[in-house]
């Protein structure tokens, strides 16, 4: 892989965005009703129905999937670098679970009804995510420095506790308000209105750009905390800023789509194979590849058993679980756990 230059950065991101557009177009033409994008321009009898189907149903869902995939892909890449652990991912670490608990609690306890205009649910999700990261750092650090090995174990415990709490709330609170909780808990892409999609897009765009701008510092932190310090990185500040941004974009999508698993694990590894490990390119590349991956996964989830839908989290977990095991086996001997 040649080293990063402005030209390579621009060409790579340009190519990725083209691939993203292409996958949006292809997946907008796939579905249980056999309308394709061509029906939008072809003057057929069904034009109105096709338009409604594609623009009101498929496209918002595809865009939502793209946003969720982008957030999880980029934050996965960042967590892997900051925690110095290639098996890190917002789902495995419990960050998504914390966000899910926050969002769920806000809904179940009726907090959102108090101030419908404010993003109460999203804020609660963010607090849940940030609290999880804080616990991870506190419990897994030796002499103030994070150690990667116990981190995954702590993530497993946190996820179990979060699930228990969510089920507890579900049991206590009247069920009618919480319709669809189980589906949401494994991750489902909802059909949202364009206003929410636009707002999320802005948050995610700023978040991913902010993270990519810390790419060089993330590279240096891959060389070890002390090496990064000696090369002029203010490690604490970089760690806090990147972890907060990654948690923010994770929480933003989890509060809408639920904790979708393993996207943040698979995508950065794929991006590294294609574009190399330089985080200035890896972070935006993981965002776009994450978007493409989740659009594809969601298309599978809504069409493979059509008209029955399976939650997208089922698809990603069925891809991601084996991938994790394969990576663990491959990397355990390769020095990642020394």
């Amino acid at each position: 892989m040649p080293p990063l230059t402005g030209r390579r950065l621009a060409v790579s991101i340009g190519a990725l965005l083209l691939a993203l557009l292409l996958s949006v177009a292809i997946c907008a033409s796939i579905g249980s009703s056999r309308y394709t994008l061509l029906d939008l321009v072809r003057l057929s009898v069904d034009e109105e129905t096709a338009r409604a189907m594609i623009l009101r149903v498929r496209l918002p869902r595809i865009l939502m999937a793209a946003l969720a995939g982008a957030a999880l892909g980029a934050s996965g890449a960042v967590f892997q670098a900051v925690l110095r652990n290639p098996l890190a991912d917002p789902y495995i670490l419990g960050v998504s679970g914390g966000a899910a608990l926050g969002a769920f609690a806000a809904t179940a306890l009726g907090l959102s009804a108090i101030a419908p205009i404010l993003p109460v649910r999203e804020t609660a999700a963010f607090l849940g995510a940030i609290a999880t990261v804080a616990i991870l750092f506190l419990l897994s650090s030796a002499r103030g420095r994070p150690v990667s090995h116990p981190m995954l174990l702590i993530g497993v415990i946190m996820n179990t506790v979060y699930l228990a709490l969510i089920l507890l709330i579900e049991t206590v609170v009247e069920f009618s308000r919480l319709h669809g909780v189980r589906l949401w808990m494994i991750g489902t892409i909802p059909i949202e209105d364009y206003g929410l999609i636009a707002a999320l897009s802005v948050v995610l765009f700023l978040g991913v750009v902010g993270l990519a701008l810390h790419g060089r510092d993330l590279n240096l932190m891959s060389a070890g905390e002390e090496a990064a310090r000696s090369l002029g990185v203010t490690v604490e500040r970089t760690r806090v800023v990147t972890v907060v941004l990654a948690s923010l974009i994770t929480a933003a999508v989890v509060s809408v789509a639920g904790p979708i698993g393993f996207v943040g694990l698979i995508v950065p590894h794929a991006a590294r194979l294609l574009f190399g490990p330089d985080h200035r390119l890896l972070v935006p590349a993981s965002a776009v590849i994450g978007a493409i991956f989740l659009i594809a996964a969601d298309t599978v989830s809504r069409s493979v058993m059509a008209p029955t839908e399976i939650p997208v989290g089922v698809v990603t977990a069925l891809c991601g679980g084996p991938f994790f095991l394969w990576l663990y086996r491959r990397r355990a001997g390769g020095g990642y756990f020394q």
Partner: protein
Amino acid sequence: MTRSGGPASAPASGPILAARNVLFRHQGATVPLFDGLNLDVQPGEFMVIIGPNGSGKTTLLKLLSGVHAPQGGEVILKTRPIRAIPPRERARSVAVVFQEARILFDFTVLEVALMGRAPHLGAWRLERTSDFESARAALREMDLTAQENAHLEELSSGERQRALIARALAQEPRVLLMDEPTAFLDLKHRLQIHEILVRLNRDRGLTVVTTSHDLNLAGRYGSRLVLLDRGRLAADGPPADVLTPALIMQVYETEARIVRDSESGVPYVVPIAPAR
């Protein structure tokens, strides 16, 4: 190339790095490791810090590099307290190669060397042509030009250590600090890395400070040895003054004989038996 005796160049403008009354206690430790430590590093020297396990060699190196903060006293870089210098500015003067230098992810040799340019770049800027030039010059100096596209994992231990020195050189520092530069290397590569350090020290006037467990390498290559004994300076001076049977017995609790190489006059330590 062997040297013994005093500093290579006379200190015209005072020490380049100085520990002043440094107090340092490891987290959770009851007794401080360093209490009132003073040490001057003169520009152009090749200083080797020696001492038994736990004597504080690595910690001293980290304090001198500004990576660790002392709890009392201060480390001065030329004229300013090193912790008061912005990290990126500090990294343009002081380069460090740590011992546990495993790099996560598959960066290439050239990418690793380019990391040394980070303190010279504006925030959020990509490397310019001139940065590629100095990274490649550092790789040439370390004889790694042919491997610039290889991944770090594919290199031998000696080559990997040279790649990390190349990263340090790309920083264009005044001082190079290295923790146990050849701990995991075989004889040939130990000598090779030390010859490189001597060359940088002599030809570029780079001030070099290393730590070492190998008294004979230290005596052969260092212009000045600093012997640490549980955080205290037990001896400080040219190798012939520091490598003595009495000091080795006192600090290493080992009986030893010192012989001199008939050609170079370099003192060699022949360990005989641990003290009872």
